[in-house]
């Protein structure tokens, strides 16, 4: 599973660093390093809905507050 988080300017200002940190921590805590590949990108093109995250190409709008819930429903449940 490839999870790409936008670290471009707009998403960065909306907290992509916190989203990255949360996802990295949760992937490690759940020992999913082998199954989940985290990656960064500059701009997915949906700046209005940032922080932009894609899971195997499927788009999600995440914020630092919803990052844990996003992990549980979209990553942990499917990995």
């Amino acid at each position, binding site marked *: 599973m490839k999870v790409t*988080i936008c*670290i*471009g*300017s*707009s998403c*960065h*200002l909306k907290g*992509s*660093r916190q989203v*990255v*940190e949360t996802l*990295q921590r949760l992937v490690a805590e759940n020992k999913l390093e082998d199954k989940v590949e*985290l*990656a*960064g*990108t*500059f*701009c997915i*093109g949906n700046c209005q809905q940032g922080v932009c995250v894609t899971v195997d190409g499927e788009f999600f709008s995440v914020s630092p507050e919803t990052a844990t819930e996003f992990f549980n429903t979209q990553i942990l449940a499917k990995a």
Partner: protein
Amino acid sequence: MDKFKTRKFDTKVQHLKYKVLREVARHAWDDTLYDRILDIPAMISPGKTPTMRCCVYKERAILTERVKLAMGGDRENPNVIEVIDIACDECPAAGYEVTDSCRGCLAHRCEDVCKRGAITFDQNHVAHIDKSKCVECGQCAKVCPFSAIANRKRPCQNACKVKAISINTNNAASIDNSKCISCGACVYQCPWGAIADKSFILDVVSLLKNSDYGKNYKVYAVVAPSISSQFTYAKLGQVITGLKELGFHTVVEAALGADIVALDESKELIEKGFLTSSCCPAFVMYIQKNFPDLVPFISHNPSPMTAISKYIKKNEPDAKIVFIGPCTAKKMEFQLDSVKPYVDSVITFEELQALFDSKGVDITELDEGVLDNASYYGRIFARCGGLSDAVSQAIKEQGIENFLLKAFSCDGIEECRTALLKKSKNVLDVNFIEGMACVGGCIGGAGCLTHGEKNKAEVDKYGREALEKTIKDAVSVLNI
């Protein structure tokens, strides 16, 4: 009225160069360049009355050469800085001369101060300099109470502190490529615009056109932090939106590359004990050409431009990257084998202005986009001293206490020379030399639209506006 006259350039030479770049780019967008190329000189210098030179025909002949440079210049010449021979006005270069301001005074301070006995007087007591004895020390000029002794030196030679410019048999300036570091000081200083940097603007137009707004591949603009002191007639956010209007997928701060470099360079410094910086390609070239013994101490880290481009291409191998900055030497750097795979082209702020106007993008009318990737420290690389501050911060952030940073920031290539000379003789007690070929740092670069006194303050202000306050926080998102 030419609406582009409202654009801010320091000199009319820059404005002229810009007009050529704009027209060349405009026709390139329209696919009409090869049909209209011969019309560009007469379009810029119309009618029969010359405004710059002796006649419109000479003006147009020079403009033809400028068109050539806008299209990449002489492919045979590896240097990115070129002399337009016919534009060189063969400025006087006689050195110290007595002007007619000499009043034939009694004191003869000039004679007394001259250690070579080069000053003589005619029957009217007016001073003369015997050129066979004069060593151009300038003492006579300093002591003359009438300022009657002038130093006739060509502005290009004056600007070139690495002494790469000589006068050829046609009395035109000539660049010695073995000495030139492509800093562009002569480009900015020549009052005739007879020395210019080659432009890769056509490569950028074709990269953008073929990308078709990201449909075929994405083109990233990596912008230097000195952009914060440029485009002063608009907001930085409008420049960012303008870049996207041109067809760039997004804009990334080279300053984030600077954050990466600051962190890595501090580690390398502690390991090696002495380093010279590798951010400024002109400084690196200067060491390679003049201080071969110090080459092993040049930081092995890539420049910020290369560091961030490497990251982008690692994640997206078919991405294209255009660096936009104040620097002519970057046009050399991106052609190096070690950089070529990561950076596809380089243009200056001057050329970006031409690119905007060639496509009718008026940035003052655009919404403000955002640009925020780097930390305060990455951003202040744009001015002299910033790199040393960042390395000092990086050492602190890593909690290293048993290493004392003794940094020396060289402001301009002359200071670089002095520091390197002292270091090579082991009489400079520092362990880090930050070298900036341009005075003031990158904000003094030849490709800047403006070179103002406030530019340093603008860069610092831009630095303080960064969301991330530490280097580690800025870089952390890259370590996914």
